[in-house]
């Protein structure tokens, strides 16, 4: 029996959240002489700065100083890929509308913002490269196109009995973390720097700040108590504020803080990559995919940022849950004069999956079959069949899929959600409805867990057991709402068999646990949970050794149970055991470390085992649309999702519900619009619409698959941060189903996001095609 893990503890900060006591970066009280910063932004998307007249900025009320790139002690590159293409402040060339040109240091946030608008900027403009088409025409690839092959797709397509071909365009997505980016830098007396930042990657902030100041990393300390949401948007994009604060703090000798106003945040920072996918597939009469060809085109924005691994992960999820015997995936990563697209929940995976799910839908329509039938004939072979001796099927990148439960999971979901029955009922309803149409779809998810950059799959932890039996833990992961700290505390509590309340959670701090990876790739609890467990076990081992000797019993008779330690006949509280050990001069503090086993990856060849395991899931979505106006509503969603043996079912269900709604937003109402000059027009929640309460599915059933991770992960759980996001592809497919019903055709190529406009015009276009032979 577990005492702490597998239990639905509420988020450790929940009482602080609801009372307003939870402190975020901009809530941290700062010394009275703290200065405030704002960036002055480029009014053009592309060109050369001819004149940057900052006289009015300097003269503005409250301004202490203004810095340009030329005023910095050394060039500052913020690129997380060390690509050298992301200067903190523009150095002559401007690359996107909204790029920071100069830094205002002022007495207040408002004074800094006001002054930042007073610059006189003249730019010799060049025609910006804004769209995927612009970028293809100009050949602005960040690196040569990448191509991975398995088998002979060309031959398989050419000889297949049936073929489809098409194109899918999927828009980007703004993170819209409710807390915008923020940072605070406090200069230390010896030249060192202490930084608080809203970041998923404190070590990278530490690294970039140290580089900018010309200091060793050991002189910079970065702390993160919590973020008000991250979603990938705070993996690399926070460096600019933290580095600016540190530079200004060094320059003025005073603490400096900065937060982006929401519009600035949306104008400056990167988003989810927009993608175009061209596809061609050959298949048989059952819908079995014989050969598939994908060409991905990703809009990366102005700098390299994380675009290469994002685009890789799109390729790595081009198969989703389907075995593709012959496949070629080609990917182009295109530089454009727009915000630098970056990590966002799923990290390219959702885009890759959209391609194959469209292929399935297209194939099914061509054959006149229910798409679920086509899905089923293509699903990866079950783990159960593999265990009985059938060979495991391999992904397009050569990883054997040994843990598939998709067939069983989909069968159960389809049954519990009454998929077939409802599909028939919807067809009847549609036949009678004067105008509205309903649609339904079931889509699967297989998501690969591990950073594809293998060395990132490591974590450290620091655990202290105090003399009174209380436990304080620190690890390299950051808390952004996902409940990581609670899960890790549960792990520590379990190790000492004490209630989770006995474990004190502390801010992430580069001075406590060094060289951490970003909290990203859904890896937070997998990596940090294991590192904390390792640290706890080292302390426990010392205690066991000590108690066995003290109480003269074999080590295997020392048991930690229900807050007590049993040593032979003796029963001690953990506090008594800790005090006795301390008095015997036993160390009660330990680091812990974990590195994910088994993984290896050659990205050039597209071969290896990039993922430790896969997380599986599926969703059935039902929608209604109004073909006259294109308005749509999600009527019902049923989810069955695999989190292994859940560390905390309440937190996991929260991730699933929240991820789903965020995914549905991406594919329906969230639309980024730029004008012809590269100016983002949707730069505030007034124009960029994320789902609100009434957009959640009217009926929303979420269940966890009852199973455990085959791999020895932390208490056999599975990662949950990203995979559920992609369950929302079922919403897009259900809408496409309803659009086809409205147009009276088997298939409509619906792009994303499926806004009312896109839906209404898709219905009209399909009807027009139908009427004109």
């Amino acid at each position, binding site marked *: 029996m577990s005492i702490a893990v597998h239990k639905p503890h*509420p988020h450790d900060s929940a009482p602080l959240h609801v009372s307003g006591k939870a402190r975020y970066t901009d809530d941290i009280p700062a010394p009275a002489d703290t200065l405030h910063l704002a960036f002055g932004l480029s009014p053009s998307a592309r060109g050369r700065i001819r004149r940057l007249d900052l006289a009015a900025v300097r003269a503005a009320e409250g301004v202490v100083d203004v810095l340009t790139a030329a005023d910095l002690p050394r060039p500052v590159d913020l690129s997380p890929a060390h690509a050298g293409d992301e200067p903190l402040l523009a150095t002559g060339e401007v690359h996107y509308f909204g790029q920071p040109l100069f830094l205002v240091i002022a007495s207040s946030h408002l004074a800094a913002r006001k002054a930042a608008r007073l610059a006189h900027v003249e730019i010799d403009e060049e025609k910006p490269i804004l769209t995927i088409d612009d970028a293809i025409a100009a050949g602005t690839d960040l690196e040569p196109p990448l191509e991975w092959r398995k088998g002979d797709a060309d031959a398989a397509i050419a000889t297949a009995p049936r073929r489809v071909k098409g194109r899918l365009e999927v828009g980007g997505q703004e993170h819209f973390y409710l807390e915008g980016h923020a940072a605070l830098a406090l200069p230390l007396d010896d030249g060192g720097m202490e930084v608080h930042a809203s970041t998923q990657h404190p070590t990278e902030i530490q690294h970039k700040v140290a580089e900018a100041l010309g200091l060793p990393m050991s002189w910079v300390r970065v702390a993160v108590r919590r*973020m*008000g949401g991250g979603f990938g948007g705070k993996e690399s994009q926070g460096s600019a504020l933290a580095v600016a604060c540190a530079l200004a703090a060094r320059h003025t000798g005073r603490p400096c803080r900065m937060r982006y106003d929401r519009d600035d945040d949306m104008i400056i920072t990167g988003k989810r990559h927009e993608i175009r996918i061209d596809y061609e597939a050959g298949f048989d009469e059952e819908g079995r995919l014989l050969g598939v060809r994908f060409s991905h085109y990703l809009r990366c924005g102005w700098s390299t940022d994380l675009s290469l691994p994002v685009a890789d992960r799109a390729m790595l999820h081009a198969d989703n849950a389907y075995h593709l015997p012959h496949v070629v995936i080609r990917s182009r990563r295109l530089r454009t004069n727009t915000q630098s697209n970056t990590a966002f929940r799923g990290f390219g995976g959702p885009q890759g999956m959209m391609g194959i799910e469209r292929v399935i839908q297209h194939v099914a329509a061509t054959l006149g079959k229910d798409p679920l039938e086509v899905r089923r004939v293509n699903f990866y072979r079950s783990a159960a069949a593999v265990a009985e001796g059938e060979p495991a099927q391999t992904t397009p990148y050569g990883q054997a899929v040994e843990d598939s439960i998709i067939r069983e999971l989909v069968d159960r979901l389809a049954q519990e959600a009454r998929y077939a029955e409802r599909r028939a009922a919807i067809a009847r309803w549609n036949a009678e409805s004067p105008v509205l149409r309903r649609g339904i779809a079931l889509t699967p998810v297989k998501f690969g867990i591990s950073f594809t950059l293998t060395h990132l799959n490591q974590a450290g932890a620091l655990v202290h057991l105090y003399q009174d039996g209380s436990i304080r833990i620190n690890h390299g992961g950051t808390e952004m*709402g996902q409940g990581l700290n609670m899960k890790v505390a549960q792990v520590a509590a379990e190790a000492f068999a004490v209630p989770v309340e006995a474990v004190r959670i502390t801010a992430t701090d580069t001075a406590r646990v060094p060289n951490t990876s970003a909290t990203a790739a859904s890896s937070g609890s997998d990596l940090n949970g294991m590192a904390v467990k390792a640290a706890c076990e080292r302390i426990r081992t010392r205690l066991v050794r000590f108690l066995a000797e003290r109480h003269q019993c074999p080590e295997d008779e020392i048991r930690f149970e229900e807050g007590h330690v049993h040593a032979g006949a003796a029963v001690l509280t953990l506090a008594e055991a800790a005090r006795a050990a301390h008095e015997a001069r036993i160390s009660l503090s330990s680091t812990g470390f974990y590195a994910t086993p088994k993984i290896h990856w050659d990205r050039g060849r597209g071969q290896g085992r990039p993922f430790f395991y896969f997380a599986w899931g599926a969703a059935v979505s039902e929608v209604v649309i109004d073909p006259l106006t294109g308005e749509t509503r999600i009527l019902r969603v049923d989810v069955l999702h695999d989190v292994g043996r859940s560390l905390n079912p309440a937190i996991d269900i929260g991730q699933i519900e929240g991820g789903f709604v965020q995914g549905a937003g991406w594919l329906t109402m969230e639309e980024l619009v730029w004008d012809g000059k590269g100016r983002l027009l949707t730069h505030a929640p007034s124009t960029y619409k994320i789902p609100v*309460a009434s957009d959640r599915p009217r009926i929303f059933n979420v269940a966890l698959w009852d199973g455990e991770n085959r791999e020895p992960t932390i208490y056999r759980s599975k990662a949950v941060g990203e995979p559920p996001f992609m369950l929302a592809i079922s919403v897009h497919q259900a809408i496409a189903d309803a659009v086809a019903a409205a147009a009276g055709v088997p298939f409509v190529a619906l792009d994303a996001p499926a806004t009312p406009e896109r839906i209404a015009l898709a219905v009209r276009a399909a009807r027009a095609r139908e009427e004109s032979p």
Partner: protein
Amino acid sequence: MTQPLRFLLNGTPVSLAEAPAQRTLLDWLREERRLTGTKEGCNEGDCGACTVMISDPLPGGGHRWQVRNACILLLPMLHGRAVRTVEGLGEKGAFHPVQEELVRHHGSQCGFCTPGIAVALAAAHAAGRHDFDAALAGNLCRCTGYAPIIRAAEAAAEAPAPAWVTADLARLDDLAGPGPLEGPGWIAHDDVDEFAAWYRDHPEARLVAGATDVGLWVTKKLMEITPVAFLHRLEVLKRVEVTATHVTFGALVPIDDLRAHLAKDAPELGAYLARFGSEQVRAAGTVGGNIANASPIGDSMPLLIALGATLRLRQGAARREMPLEDFFIDYGVQDRRPGEFVEAVIVPRPLPVAGRLVRAWKISKRRDQDISAVAGAFDITIESGTVSAARIAFGGMAATPKRARATEAALIGHPWSEATIGAAAEALAADFTPISDMRASARYRMEAARGLLQRLWLESRGAGPVEIDSVFEELAR
């Protein structure tokens, strides 16, 4: 100042000698009071992270609670009000029931939206409401998907409210005295005649009612708004007068009260106006503000124009009236003289009469709290199968809210038939040349407007549901 600015903050009286016109409640709370529970999420009244409860005096005496966005609430607007922030929701060291249930139901993840959500739910709780989707239409959460928040709200609904919910309101009458209130560059009259005379003499002043638009001039355009007159103390302009045939709304009647009154005669119009902004915006925004601001996408105007509303303007002691649609001349240009202000709008009641179809619909990317791509309002009467009267107006289709006269002409005197609807749909092109922007393309706007005419026709035939919301709601039952 003539008198200090006085209000209750979480039950404690506050008296401020200095209150700059542009100082937002949010900045003041966070910077002066170190009450950092109220969050800045967007600084434009769209995300709800800064939601606070504010008392609002009722025209007939007494006070009620409203939810407002502190980021676009300017300090001078607080005189005589009670304010409750997230820090003041609990009582005697205990959580408010909604806070308790949010913890229990896992209603927070990152927690940044949570203070605003807790306040919005506390306000709904105080009002005994159960329509939580509507109550939360102005509160964005990016983590939870909302389901656990709604579960928490439902679980808290029957628990007793803290005593301050009534106690605060009972303390307000003696809090702030009558008479003029002034600060640097601003004035807030409480006598409408004095205000009218003052404004006639100071036509350069900006008028601020609910600040749902002017608030953004401050927080986003970073404009100086002085000299400015705050209107919120002109209680006489908050009156609603109902006769057998008309309702007269004072200019300062909040949009939410407009909604409530029109819904009594025509529930469909209430449903339309429930999609105007959010709870926070409808509580702050006023009928007069929505008209005087003259935005082409203000949602009250197509409806009021279709109903045949008359606008009453006042300049000093002089008043004049005009059909509402004549007020809007072009984008940003209205028929308003210097020193003249909107006093009231007189609306013929949308009474249910046989053969009369009164409908208004809004189309936007998101159902709640979005700006219309197209909003259409229809008041059509059919007698013996023939259209005898038709007034139609659209928002989002032109530079101003505008009547669709050619479309009306294509209907009036013609049989109510699919062919007539088709002709009316064609006529829309004579009325409107919409533009493309980030909300919608010109082509879609026209198609959607035609779609609404088609919907009106289908609905009159009664063949089945014609609105997606009806399917959605059916499931909830």
